[in-house]
């Protein structure tokens, strides 16, 4: 819903929240349901109400637990029955500077100030440790905004007795904890308050009247920012850009003006703004975002523009470049198909409002930021939090290369008549092993990101993945070939009961479709099952809006359908009591 996308009208959202909610619920969306516990150090009512709207808008239907006013610590430490039974999927600790119980006084000695810092910090750390032990779910914690007044003026930041100084040090401790603990995320209200203005973020009026530590008019920004973290946890980040060229990545029309006359580079104000924007876009490659072009241009002109000596982006920075006269919606669809990504994983950036409107109207779920003027493009995109990073993996750094290797594979494939011969020519090697500590984060990430080749679409937190490693048969698979390493691309989890192994999870990244990796995995599952005295493997398929491609997956592997219900959920069985011949003939398995 456009009303809930940046730049939104916060007053409209606040005053219309009930009717907006009704509209969101009446849309025919298949929601992911999540339980979110809010442990508040101040009033949280409207924070919850607006978070609810922003989450509904991205397909998450939340049920909430709210602690009693300012009972966050008690709720966190003493396991109230209501919270335990609620079984939160996410816990959000809403504390702000009003919850800092011991600020230094100017009379304190250096060691007294240090003690106070330790006291305040350790209370939080105890909560986080306890919550994570009891609930095994992601925890989101606000850091602290600056105080609204400063006794020491500018020295407040410098002098150890200053509140600003104290908050800076606390925030650094929070960040250290987040950097070294999985499943723990900082909601950076310090940045948010700076961005919207501290006086807008905290207003004594709302604090004294209603005990709102976030001023009511700032709650929309607050909840929006919070929703980005939850969105990222549940794999709803965007994955790729489709970018226009003329007047988007440079000033001017390359076909008319010629590449030498484009506004790009340090020579002019406009050129500088476009250069900064190119650098900003390019930096997304490092967090695993794929860059693509859709431009109404002759290809040679498009490439000439991208090869401009002053530009930051070069043709090789892009995964796919579609410079032609097709409608852009067609190009976006082609790009999505070639990359095996859903169209809703894309952010479409174009300076032309007419193009934006057509793409938005024709492609369901695509993000189309309303970019305004070249000096503001970055901001117009950034505020949406499309690519909220939770944790950087090596995979993110090399994702662009992986997709490019895939495109080379596709070119190679054209030279083969026989698909089997092509697969052999790839010289594929796989590692398939039980879950290992170094891959837990990536495995959890995959369970939350994979939608298409995913039989049960069961989402796991990292804590749950670690638990599965203890009490389930677990498998992760890495695949590499002569074009490059794809990293961890497939995951399966089986629960053994007697002589039957129930496959609770089986997923694969779409970038290795049709490479027989699923056969290699089946072989390993069968071998492992046999070692555990299993004679029958049960597969499950639960249909979602996105996983139709694996509807007949188990059938293809030779399983027999044993059950089907009215929702299309199917259950499959494979007898492995006899001899088993390996299905995979093209991938070498490294032991």
């Amino acid at each position, binding site marked *: 819903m456009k009303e809930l996308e940046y730049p939104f009208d916060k007053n409209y959202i*606040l*005053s*219309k*929240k*009930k*009717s907006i909610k009704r509209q969101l619920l009446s849309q025919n969306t298949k929601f992911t349901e999540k339980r979110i516990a809010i442990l508040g150090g101040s009033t949280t*009512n*409207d924070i919850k109400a607006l978070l609810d709207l922003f989450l509904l808008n991205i397909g998450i239907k939340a049920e909430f637990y709210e602690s009693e006013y300012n009972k966050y610590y008690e709720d966190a430490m003493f396991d109230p029955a209501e919270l335990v039974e609620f079984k939160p999927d996410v816990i959000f600790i809403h504390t702000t500077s009003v919850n800092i119980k011991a600020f230094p006084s100017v009379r304190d000695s250096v060691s007294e100030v240090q003690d106070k810092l330790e006291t305040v910090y350790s209370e939080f750390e105890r909560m986080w440790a306890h919550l994570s032990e009891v609930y095994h779910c992601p925890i989101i914690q606000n850091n602290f905004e600056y105080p609204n007044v400063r006794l020491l003026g500018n020295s407040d930041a410098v002098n150890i007795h200053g509140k600003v100084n104290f908050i800076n040090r606390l925030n650094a401790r929070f960040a250290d904890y987040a950097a070294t603990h999985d499943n723990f995320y900082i909601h950076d209200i310090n940045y948010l308050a700076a961005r919207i203005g501290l006086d807008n973020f905290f207003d004594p009026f709302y604090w004294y009247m*209603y005990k709102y530590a976030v001023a009511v008019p700032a709650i929309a920004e607050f909840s929006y920012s919070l929703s980005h973290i939850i969105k990222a946890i549940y794999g709803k980040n965007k994955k790729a850009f489709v970018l226009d060229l003329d007047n988007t990545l440079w000033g001017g029309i390359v076909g008319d003006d010629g590449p030498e006359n484009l506004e790009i580079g340090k020579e002019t104000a406009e050129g500088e703004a476009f250069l900064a924007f190119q650098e900003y876009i390019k930096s997304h490659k490092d967090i695993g975002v794929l860059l693509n072009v859709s431009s109404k241009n002759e290809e040679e002109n498009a490439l000439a523009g991208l090869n401009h000596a002053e530009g930051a982006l070069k043709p090789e920075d892009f995964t796919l470049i579609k410079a032609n006269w097709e409608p852009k919606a067609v190009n976006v669809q082609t790009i999505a198909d070639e990359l095996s990504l859903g169209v809703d994983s894309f952010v479409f950036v174009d300076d032309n409002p007419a193009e934006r409107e057509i793409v938005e109207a024709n492609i369901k779920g695509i993000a189309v930021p309303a970019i305004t003027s070249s000096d503001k493009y970055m901001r117009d995109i950034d505020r949406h939090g499309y690519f909220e990073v939770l944790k950087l993996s090596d995979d993110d750094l090399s994702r662009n290369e992986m997709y490019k290797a895939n495109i080379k594979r596709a070119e190679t494939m054209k030279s083969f008549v026989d698909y089997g011969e092509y697969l052999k020519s790839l010289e594929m090697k796989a590692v398939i092993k039980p879950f290992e500590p170094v891959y837990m984060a990536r495995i959890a990430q995959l369970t939350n990101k994979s939608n298409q080749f995913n039989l049960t679409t069961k989402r796991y937190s990292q804590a749950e993945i670690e638990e599965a490693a203890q009490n389930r048969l677990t498998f992760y698979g890495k695949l590499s070939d002569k074009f490059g390493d794809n990293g961890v691309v497939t995951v399966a989890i089986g629960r053994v009961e007697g002589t039957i192994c129930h496959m609770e999870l089986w997923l694969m990244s779409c970038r290795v479709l049709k490479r027989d990796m699923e056969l290699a995995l089946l072989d390993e599952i069968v071998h492992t099952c046999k070692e555990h005295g299993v004679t029958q493997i049960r597969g499950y398929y639960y249909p979602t809006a996105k996983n139709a491609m694996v509807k007949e997956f188990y059938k293809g592997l030779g399983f027999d359908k044993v059950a089907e219900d009215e929702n299309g959920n199917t259950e499959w069985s494979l007898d492995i009591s006899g001899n088993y011949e390996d299905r995979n003939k093209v991938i070498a398995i490294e032991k």
Partner: protein
Amino acid sequence: MTREEAYEKLNEVFRDVFDDEEIVVNDATTANDIEDWDSLEHINLVVAVEKCFGIKFNMGEVAKLKNVGEMMDLILNKIG
């Protein structure tokens, strides 16, 4: 703006905030007359009224309000 005109606008604000197209308020209306009007919704009402009339209440004023009539007096007073 006459009191009647101001009430037209105020009714709209109430209808939005409480999501009820039927609401009509008058001088005597209090929180007891509107089902969802609790202290937490009150804050939304105050913010919406401020926005609608382009005014700002101070803390003491909001705390003292007893019914919609008093709120209207305050609004008319502020918009002059």
